[in-house]
């Protein structure tokens, strides 16, 4: 009975913490909306259907905690748990307009100390990888959108400067990935494992993928 009571009170604490976090997350986004006056959480983009090479209308939108993908759905990361832990973070989902319940790609953007844009996570849906790949340009759209947010939300010298870290256990993998980001997304090495997309490079990405 004591154990059952202990488990029940622990579950209650977890539920209260979860509800409190969801409330905080929603209030944080309300603060962002009020601060920036404009609603800054939706973008129409075009991705490419691999099957027939046709353009498909998609949108990038802010994802609620419940909408964020997880390992249970065969993603590599638990975006829902990550969002709960990360400070000043917003989760963005890329979905096709006609199938908005299916997440094609996910990205978490952080604004460190309210000034410094940082791309904490990005992952493409399991059904968009390898032989299963349904859509192309998903990653490009999300990375370009992260840069767009660095322009809108970044302050001072950090405006238009999107950082992200490439950290791999295998150093050779790490270097190959960095080359990939440099080649595909105009990223430059800032320091050690931190890469950055900035200024004209980022603007070119936005023009290529978003506008």
């Amino acid at each position, binding site marked *: 009975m004591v154990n059952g009571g202990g488990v029940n009170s622990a579950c209650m604490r977890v539920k209260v913490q979860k509800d409190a976090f969801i409330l905080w997350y929603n209030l944080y986004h309300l603060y962002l909306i009020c601060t920036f006056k404009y*609603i800054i959480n*939706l973008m129409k983009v075009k991705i490419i259907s691999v099957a027939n090479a046709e353009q498909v209308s998609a949108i990038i939108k802010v994802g609620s905690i419940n909408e964020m993908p997880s390992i249970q759905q065969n993603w590599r*990361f638990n975006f829902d748990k990550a969002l709960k832990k990360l400070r000043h973070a917003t989760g963005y989902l890329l979905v096709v307009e006609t199938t908005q319940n299916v997440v094609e790609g996910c990205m978490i953007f*952080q604004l460190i100390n309210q000034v410094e844009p940082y791309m904490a*996570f990005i*992952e493409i849906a399991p059904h968009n990888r390898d032989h299963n790949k349904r859509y192309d340009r998903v990653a490009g759209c999300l990375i370009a959108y992260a840069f767009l947010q660095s*322009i809108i939300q970044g302050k001072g010298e950090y405006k238009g400067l999107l950082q992200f870290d490439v950290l791999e256990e295998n150093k050779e993998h790490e270097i190959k*990935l960095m080359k990939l980001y440099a080649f595909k997304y105009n990223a430059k090495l*800032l320091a050690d494992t931190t890469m950055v997309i900035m*200024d004209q490079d980022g603007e070119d990405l936005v023009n290529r993928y978003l506008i």
Partner: protein
Amino acid sequence: MAAEKDNRGKRSEIVIGPHDGYNRTEEKRAEISALVTAHHKTRSPERIRKNEMLSVQYRMEEYLNDERVAVDNICTIEDFVKDFLTVLGISRSKFAGYIDTDLSNLNKYFRAERKFNIDLALKFAHFFHTSADIWLMVQIKNDLLLLQSEQDEKYRKYDYETIIS
């Protein structure tokens, strides 16, 4: 973490994370800060201004894309012009002069006493280095929102289903 291959027919996976931008050592934070500051010093005034202008332009794009904009949170052309002029450090009256009009006339367009038109959109586009249609689309979006909220009932009767049996 992410398997990738070169781009000669082999797969490439874009995966970043999981990382926390706050989870950096003091040394790393200081290093990044110093590098960013050093880079910022190399930015031309034109680039700095361009980034600020892009900020307004991208907000306009997002505003146009956002289907959840309603009558009570409309952003007008005047709002965006004000933001652009703030970046440029130009007063509204000077801006009016630059586009061959006067402040009184310009304000009439902002207050919808005069219809925002293509000529004005082209002037704004050239002045602020945007497309003309973005200004027109913002105006159309806002006009539609207002009209639909005020007179939605009036337009419902215009439906082909009422005349085709």
